[in-house]
């Protein structure tokens, strides 16, 4: 044994980089770290700068009054607040149109997910899934245009008139379906929103359902369960939390949707019980009045935006927590 006597192949210190190479690695690391942090920075800046502008409006109008009263009289002052800013009508419009959207899109998405995952012939599954996903690629202004000039006059208005005519006179629920039916209203915006959020709910619901253990499905079939029983008692039961998360993600999308809603929801700065009322949503109100707004009103619109942001972020975070367990969902619709 001649430990320590043989010659070392080379001096380890030769490996140490000299000159600029020494800084290459730390530099690269720092740059990518900065890029990673930039996401948080942008989000922070987003919250900071808008809240700063919205604060005077909240103080002037009162936080409670801003969110619960529905009188919106835009002022025209350059550097002081003179109008009345109650955003309740827009909050109501946002909530009711999104609710209508979820009530239509959720059952449809669950059915579509079950069909694609369990019933469709295997070789069509990807194609079908991708066809539904393509709905997410359509720009929202195209939905607005199509909804306004094609889908509403051809389909939604006749349906609305029919519903209003039959259900408008029923004692208790009648008020919800009360006419007259204007060309743009909550119901029409809700229907187009439903089409827009269908792909995201479907994409996530499909992913959640696909995670049902094959053993349990096989066991259920082995005990003589029918297709429907397997879906209802095994797949749907297991994927319930994930589907709730998926629908909240869809809800978040619907709440924040701007252009299509602005084009279809009506435009009156008031609210009404009837689903056929031509109201306004938060995002829609910002988009449609921004251009003619005086400086003080722009601040009030930013305040509406902050309210909208808070609502959508809470809904989104809840959704992410619920869907977290299944990992992050791939696919274009979920982005």
């Amino acid at each position, binding site marked *: 044994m001649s430990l320590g006597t043989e010659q070392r192949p080379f001096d380890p210190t030769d490996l140490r980089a000299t000159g600029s190479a020494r800084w290459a690695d730390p530099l690269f690391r720092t740059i990518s770290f900065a890029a990673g942090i930039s996401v948080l920075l942008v989000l922070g800046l987003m919250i900071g700068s*808008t809240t700063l502008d919205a604060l005077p409006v909240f103080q002037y109008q009162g936080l409670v009054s801003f969110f619960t009263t529905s009188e919106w009289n835009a002022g025209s002052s350059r550097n002081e607040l003179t109008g009345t800013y109650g955003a309740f009508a827009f909050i109501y419009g946002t909530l009711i149109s999104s609710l209508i959207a979820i009530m239509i899109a959720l059952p449809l998405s669950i059915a579509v997910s079950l069909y694609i995952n369990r019933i469709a012939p295997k070789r069509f599954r990807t194609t079908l899934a991708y066809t539904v996903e393509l709905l997410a690629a*359509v720009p929202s202004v*195209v939905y607005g245009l199509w909804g306004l000039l094609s889908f509403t006059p051809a389909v939604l208005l006749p349906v609305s008139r029919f519903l209003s005519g039959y259900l408008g006179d029923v004692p208790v629920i009648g008020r919800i379906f009360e006419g007259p039916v204007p060309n743009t209203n909550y119901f029409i915006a809700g229907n187009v929103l439903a089409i827009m959020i269908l792909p995201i709910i479907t994409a996530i619901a499909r992913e959640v359902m696909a995670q049902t253990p094959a053993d349990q499905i096989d066991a259920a079939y082995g005990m003589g369960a029918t297709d429907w029983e397997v879906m209802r008692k095994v797949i749907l039961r297991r994927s319930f939390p994930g589907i709730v998360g998926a629908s909240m993600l869809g809800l978040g*999308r619907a709440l924040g*949707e701007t*252009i299509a809603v602005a084009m279809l929801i009506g435009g009156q700065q008031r609210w009404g019980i009837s689903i056929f009322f031509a109201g306004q949503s938060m995002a829609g109100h910002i988009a449609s009045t921004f251009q003619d707004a005086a400086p003080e009103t722009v601040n009030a619109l930013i305040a509406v935006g902050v309210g909208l942001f808070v609502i959508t972020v809470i809904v989104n975070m809840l959704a992410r927590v619920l869907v977290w367990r299944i990992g992050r969902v791939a696919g274009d619709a979920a982005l």
Partner: protein
Amino acid sequence: MSATLSPEREHLSLRTIDPYTRRRKQRSRFVRGLLLAAMVVAVIPLFLILIEVVRRGWPAMGWEFLTQVQPSGRTPGGGYVHGIIGTFYMVGFATLISVPVGILAAIYLVEYGRGPLTGIIRFFTDVMTGVPSVFVGLFIYALLVRQIGFGAFVGGLGLSVMMLPIIVRSSEEMLRLVPEDQRAASAGLGARKWQTIMKVVLPTAAPGLTTGAMLAVARAAGETAVLLLTALGSLQVVNQFQGQPIASITLLVYRGARQPFAEGQQRAWAGALFLMVMVLLLTLSARYISSRSRR
């Protein structure tokens, strides 16, 4: 002791199905039909949109539409060249910002990220994908437009804020698909970490990264609300980088759809057709690239 059948059931052959089971099977068949109907209902809107956009947009589409500016009032003809230029201008600028930053952020998350900060960044990236686009517009307005005015620069910045989380998320997923062995092999050959990332990881993940970027570009090209508050819109071709309101296809479609004139609406349909072709080409080729590289 052998199992005994009840006397009533003893005579039933295996072929006969008792009413209860028959009902269950019927119900299952009924539900299958219902689900098929739901599937059909769900894909109808896509085809309706495609058919309507082509049918009503095609007559106004043409060389004139692509090369001329929109005339005033109800004059027929003219086109959206100012919008097309504006969209390419702003989306191009937004891509230049958000693609490098987004991919670098994804590199940080995958290659360097450890500890709670990574989780926080990842979570808030997800949250950012859900931020309403009109709020992004308000943010850029409050931060920049009030000081330096409307223009392509602020519009592009707004679009890049929309694109960033999409690119970070998709790139992160793609970088994770690069096998750990390749990184180890590269390190074993003596490459530094940044060399491994630049020369091994990124080239391997390139098709996937391209896919994510293309989807983000498609999303930005169809964006309206952000531009409404930052680019504002214009009736002429604008090539100034900042300080002058600029048009985009989406803004022109939004305003055209609300015009009471059939001519204006027809131009809006043609604009929608242009947008749809652009967005679908991007989305479908992104899909093609990613499916080809996965094989």
